[in-house]
């Protein structure tokens, strides 16, 4: 019975940690949350080790050791869940919730629906729209950027579903969004500002969470995480750069001018 209780806490903490990482939490937050929750359950000497792709938790109970590790293969960014999971872990750490209630709440959070697809699309579109205005484009540029934003969302959604890797997703998405204004210019529409459109829309691809969390993990002293996240940032930046270069390169090869 006692062993069962330990396993239950272990499973709960692993799952909460995994979901925290998956939804954009810093790694130190995951480690701290798991430690505090286990301490609230009565296992104050538990060991928690987390990196962006894996969590290992060990609980020492009586004469036995219980260990579990979980892999995190794909990370996303759902700040609504992140906020709720963070609140849940605080409540558990403050001993306000029993393990049963905590499990039920975790289940409820994970079952919560995100924004409907059309609102997501509008979010992408308007972010690109206003960033183009922000960088000095005029209304027509912004309208084209809005379309590019929709395109990026559609491409990314589809490729994530097909389990493409991050590098390739970013190459294709940035290539697509650059192709639109380049094609229009090649067709003779010269009143648009290709640079403003591209800069406005490219903002959608910038790995903001990774950049921010790198610094926050460095501060804590978690350098393994920081190095692996930094690699992610650089690889994504490289992918975006390659994606920008391809359409321009093709246009240049075809027409000889830019």
């Amino acid at each position, binding site marked *: 019975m006692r062993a069962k209780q330990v396993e239950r806490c272990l499973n709960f903490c692993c799952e909460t940690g995994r979901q925290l990482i998956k939804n*954009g*939490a*810093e790694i130190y*937050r995951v480690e701290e949350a798991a430690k505090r929750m286990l301490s609230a359950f009565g296992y104050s000497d538990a060991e928690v080790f987390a990196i962006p792709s894996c969590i290992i938790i060990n609980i020492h109970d009586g004469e036995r050791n219980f260990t579990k590790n979980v892999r995190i293969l794909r990370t996303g*960014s*759902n*700040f*609504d*869940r*992140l*906020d709720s999971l*963070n*609140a849940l872990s*605080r409540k558990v750490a403050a001993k306000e919730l029993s393990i049963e209630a905590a499990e039920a709440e975790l289940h409820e959070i994970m079952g919560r629906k*995100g*924004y409907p697809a059309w*609102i*997501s699309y*509008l*979010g*992408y*579109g*308007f*972010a*690109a*729209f*206003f*960033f183009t*205005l*922000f*960088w000095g484009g005029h209304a027509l540029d912004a309208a084209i950027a809005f379309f590019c934003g929709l395109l990026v969302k559609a491409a990314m959604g589809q490729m994530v579903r097909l389990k493409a890797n991050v590098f390739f997703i970013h190459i294709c998405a940035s290539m697509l969004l650059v192709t639109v204004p380049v094609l229009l210019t090649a067709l003779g529409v010269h009143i648009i500002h290709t*640079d403003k459109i*591209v*800069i406005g829309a*490219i*903002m*959608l691809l*910038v790995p*903001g*969470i990774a*950049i*921010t*969390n*790198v*610094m*926050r993990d*460095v*501060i804590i002293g978690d350098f393994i995480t920081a190095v692996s996240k930094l690699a992610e940032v650089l690889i994504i*930046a490289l992918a*975006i*750069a390659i994606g*920008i*270069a391809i359409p*321009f*390169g093709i246009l*240049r090869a075809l027409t000889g001018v*830019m």
Partner: protein
Amino acid sequence: MTLQDYLPCLYALLACAGFAVMFEIKKPMFILLASATGMVSWLVFLLLHDIGSEVARYFLATMVAALFAETFARLMKAPATIFLVIGIVPLVPGGGLYYAMDALIGGNYALFAERGLDTAAFAAAIAAGVSVVTSIVRMAMTGRMNRRERETKKEE
């Protein structure tokens, strides 16, 4: 500077609201605060236009944004990441990356190096701004916790 020059702040606010939806933030208050952080970061950036150094400008603007994000996080009892990620988006040097690639494709390697290094320096300034504020906030929080622990011990 005229009022017209501050129009980008409004665009930053709206663009950040779009980003808040992209990141699935649901609470209207959170969307508002995250977008406000973005607007503030750009406002500070604009106000510092005669500071002389672009890197310092990015650094200070990020520091103010991070300060706002940490404050909102404490008030709302939410992770600071939520406000910070969206708040610094207007400062991200996407333009630098684009113009660097533009120079590279055009075969102008000197310009590519200059713009590439500029972009890297701005990114580093943003990172430094975030880390300074977060470090100080963490130190303050740890200090408060230590004090509280001492007080509870005294009472016992």
